[in-house]
């Protein structure tokens, strides 16, 4: 009977240097490539913010300049558009976060009639094509004789933001240990006190992320705003208007600033929500006498 030795054909295969390298690093390369793909528009945006523009056509690189960074608001109408979009996004994010968080909490904690229906409506809000949502909102506002402008935009933005916030906060609440709420109740706290002192502080990082998301969605919204903005020009509508003629590099500057601020927020939120340090369970009760 034959003695069984290692049956793996080790090092038998003729080595092709390039192929070996590829097979070993294919995952790394794929990850690198995907990251590059995702970042390409952002990189282009940042690069173009340093473009030296000539005349009106400046979709091409003409040379390095700090001109746009030195005078980031030197485009007529830009400041007005930002003065509308930024406060609008803040207010919308605030309202949507409050309503969305309450919706999420209700959906996770309570049983009520129409719970499934609510879930469906939230999903529909997200999955309905924006063009359709925008045109039907336009119809609604016209039918009800609601004057178009900031008010209608706020209503519309809050509406689609609620669904996003609710879904994000809900996923956090699902993993929330209900025993913590029970403990607070056990110690004499009622519903609101439990929520304010225990639940909300613990899920806060997710709520903040949801709020940032809601802020960005509102700031960025183009399609629905197009239908319901009336005479009001938000930042995306302004960019659209400009882009049809020429793109001043200042818009890339604003875009870059927004990107940086948001990134900082996300990093800060991530750092704050990280657990203090891994605890060591061995050795335990010790040293307390």
């Amino acid at each position: 009977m034959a003695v069984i030795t290692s049956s793996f054909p080790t090092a038998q295969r003729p080595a092709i240097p390039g192929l070996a390298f590829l097979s070993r690093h294919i995952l790394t390369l794929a990850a690198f490539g995907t990251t590059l793909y995702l970042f390409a528009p952002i990189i282009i945006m940042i690069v173009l913010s340093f473009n030296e523009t000539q005349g009106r056509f400046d979709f091409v690189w003409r040379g390095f300049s700090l001109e746009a960074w030195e005078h980031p608001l030197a485009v007529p109408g830009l400041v007005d558009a930002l003065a509308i979009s930024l406060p609008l996004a803040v207010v919308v994010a605030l309202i949507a976060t409050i309503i969305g968080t309450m919706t999420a909490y209700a959906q996770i904690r309570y049983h009520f009639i129409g719970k499934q229906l609510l879930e469906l409506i939230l999903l529909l809000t997200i999955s309905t094509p924006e063009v359709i949502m925008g045109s039907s909102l336009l119809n609604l506002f016209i039918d009800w004789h609601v004057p178009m402008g900031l008010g209608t935009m706020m209503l519309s933005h809050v509406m689609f933001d609620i669904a996003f916030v609710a879904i994000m906060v809900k996923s956090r609440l699902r993993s929330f240990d209900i025993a913590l709420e029970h403990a607070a109740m056990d110690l004499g706290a009622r519903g609101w006190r439990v929520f304010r002192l225990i639940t909300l502080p613990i899920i806060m990082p997710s709520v903040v992320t949801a709020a940032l998301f809601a802020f960005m969605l509102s700031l960025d919204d183009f399609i629905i705003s197009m239908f319901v903005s009336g005479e009001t020009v938000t930042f995306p509508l302004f960019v659209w208007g400009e882009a049809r003629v020429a793109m001043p590099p200042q818009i890339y500057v604003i875009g870059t600033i927004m990107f940086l601020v948001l990134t900082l927020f996300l990093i800060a939120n991530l750092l704050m929500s990280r657990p203090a340090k891994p605890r060591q369970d061995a050795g335990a009760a010790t040293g307390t006498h």
Partner: protein
Amino acid sequence: MALTADTVTPAVRTGPAPVADPIIRVERVGKSYGGHTIIESLDLDIERGEFLTLLGPSGCGKTTTLKMIAGFEMPTSGRILLDGVDVSGLPPYRRPLNTVFQQYALFPHMTVFDNVAFGPRTAKVEKSAVAKSVEAALATVSMSKFAGKKPDQLSGGQQQRVALARALVNAPKALLLDEPLSALDVKLRRAMQLELKRIHTEVKTTFIFVTHDQDEALTMSSRIAVMNGGKIEQLDQPETLYRRPATRFVAGFIGQANLLPAIVQTNVGGIAGLLLDGGGSVLAAAPASLVAGDPVLLVLRPEQAALSLGSAQGGNGFQARLRSFDFQGSTCRYALARDDGQEIIVTVLPQHQLAGAEPGALVWVQWDEAHAWVVPDPTRQRGS
């Protein structure tokens, strides 16, 4: 078929005997979740200051019972009296009771001090008084040095202590503990058992403890309620449960036991004469309720029998053959079998080891009749 008294009047108390002026009275409490009954009708009186353990396998209703006392679950029927007041419908925050949760449930975003202060602050206790009582509670559990730490900086045992302090600081009428030691490793659990006992003696509050660990229950409790299938099988002091189990379940659940089927021949003066199923007449202590002809189980604890080599040697016992032998340090464990195949485990101290015993050898198993016990065998009908 005639209805028994129980089905005609389910309102009759069925459980353990009531005590005078209990701190908590569970009265004919039932609980079912959508058609599925967990507890049919439970009666339980908890004495002031005692350390009562609800012991049973998972799904026996012990945790549900505790949750109903705490107010996290509402009974489907019956009522719960706390210090004479019906609290059945009250939410947890209206009950002067506190719970130590299985995974401690410390608030992760608060320091140890703030965790413990949560109860007093919620009760709007004055600020200086809060600090004082929190410090006292932390001192009781030897955690004063950790007041400024966050829960995730503490070990499991330390978190356990904080959870205890957080509950005790409110001076509850009873402290409810839901398997609080199950997350700790064996060594630490042992230490915390003694610590809990010390704290119980110190604070003199009623402790209601839930566990599935019979060793833990025996170590700590003043009384144990053994639960099975939503019922209390027996409520007694640990020693009584061990020496005089009321049912087959209790005999098997508390400690090790050899259970040998037999029929009662006589029962006089607390000692019953039994005819073992595989043959052989033996004696064992028995409750007076058993009469001749009753099918029973002889409860023979492994450490209560003595072994000697050879066949029948007189005295109270039977003959068996040696199957195997394990030396276990502090004890020696013998596996034996009777001629009808019935297996018996006997443990003896090393100094009483059987010298030169080989598997297959005839062994005489003997015991003092007062140390063995008899329980009814629910699986067999009375044959007379």
